[in-house]
């Protein structure tokens, strides 16, 4: 199981509390993880990545294992600690504005 932490606005929007535990089919990558997340919570479509281009929204970042994975290829394998569930995959809203 992969652990995913959403920013508070999206937890509220998807009506979830705390971490999300996801089963990801096949190789766990950013793309497959987000596919699984959106399949379970369709209201998150368009909130993390663009509907059409599937690009990460500009003011969001992906962190895990104290690394910034935001610019990793969407199909690159996630770190072992994320795939094993020992570390969470963090979706973080940029600090900006009031």
């Amino acid at each position: 199981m992969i652990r995913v932490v959403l920013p508070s606005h999206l937890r509220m929007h998807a009506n979830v509390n705390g971490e999300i535990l996801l089963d990801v089919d096949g190789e766990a990558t950013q793309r497959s993880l987000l596919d699984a997340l959106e399949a379970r919570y369709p209201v998150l479509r368009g909130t993390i990545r663009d509907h059409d281009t599937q690009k990460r929204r500009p003011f969001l970042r992906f962190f895990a294992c104290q690394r910034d994975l935001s610019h990793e290829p969407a199909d690159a394998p996630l770190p072992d600690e994320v795939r094993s569930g020992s570390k969470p995959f963090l979706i973080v809203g940029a600090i900006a504005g009031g």
Partner: protein
Amino acid sequence: MTGVRVLVGTRKGAFVLTSDGTRKSWDVSGPHFPGWEIYHLKGSPADPNRIYASQSSGWFGQQIQRSDDGGKTWAPVDNKFAYDGVPGTHQWYDGTPHPWEFKRVWHIEPSLTDPDTVFAGVEDAALFRTSDGGKSWAEVPGLRGHGSGAHWMPGAGGMCLHTILLDPVDPKRMFIAISAAGAFRTDDGGETWQPINKGLRSEYIPDPHAEVGHCVHRLAMHPSRPNVLFMQKHWDVMRSDDAGNSWHEVSGNLPTDFGFVIDVHAHEPETIYVVPIKSDAEHFPMDGKLQVWRSRSGGNEWEALTKGLPQSNCYVNVLRDAMAVDTLDTCGVYFGTTGGQVYASADAGDTWSAIVRDLPAVLSVEVQALK
């Protein structure tokens, strides 16, 4: 009528304010969607408990929320606004072509007769429609495709379609306005559109009388007389008596004719309201005095309405979607400020009081009369 419900969109959430017909004491519900920008909420005239809300965020994009119980509970509906076909380009601030990019929904206009049919005005300017209660949205392509779209340019607030007026007499006629393109009309249900900007004069564009390029801030219409339109332009308050075919200025004795809102009394089609703002550089009232100005003659002759409004040290703005009128026997008038106050008058503007004072900056105000 048993009461009124005021729907307030703010920079950090939505609020629902309710009162009985006296409009003296108010219950405040909210914030709904705390932390999100709520550009606009509006209820269906055909089913007042059906309310749609535009919820957006620079981080997380656009959402549309729908309530079927008068704003007590909400559920998200479809949030995908895809332009029809190849989106093409409009002018960017530097005059270069810029691809159309969806940013947010500015205005929601439910059908007059069907709760499941709703129009949405978006940035970058386009008109969308749902006919299934928000489960899916499709662009009304004739507007951007009518020919001048490539020449539209954003105003400082973005290139937004912010006003949608549905003609209650002719269901195929609709008016919209875009900053900074101007006003447009369809007579065939959205298939084809024409610019209706003749008579507008805007010194801030190369040809002040151009067919498009005018920064129209707001249009208003009385439902009994849909051929008469009122406009608050960037500068100038304008009037048309022929459904927008031509416009003439009715700013008259206003202390400044810059502003954002304009609205029409619910029972007196010649009584109109504006909130004069000092200038395009100084978005606050003249001399720190918040004043609604009312004309009972359809323009030109205006009177200041000040009773109950701050008359010193007030430097708020009133944004374009932040004024509304109710249809009770004595028409109520409402407006919200960027300082978080929502003011109401239960006597057509003669006296005012604040329903709430300390909300986040108010982006929009709508009101429903409840039976």
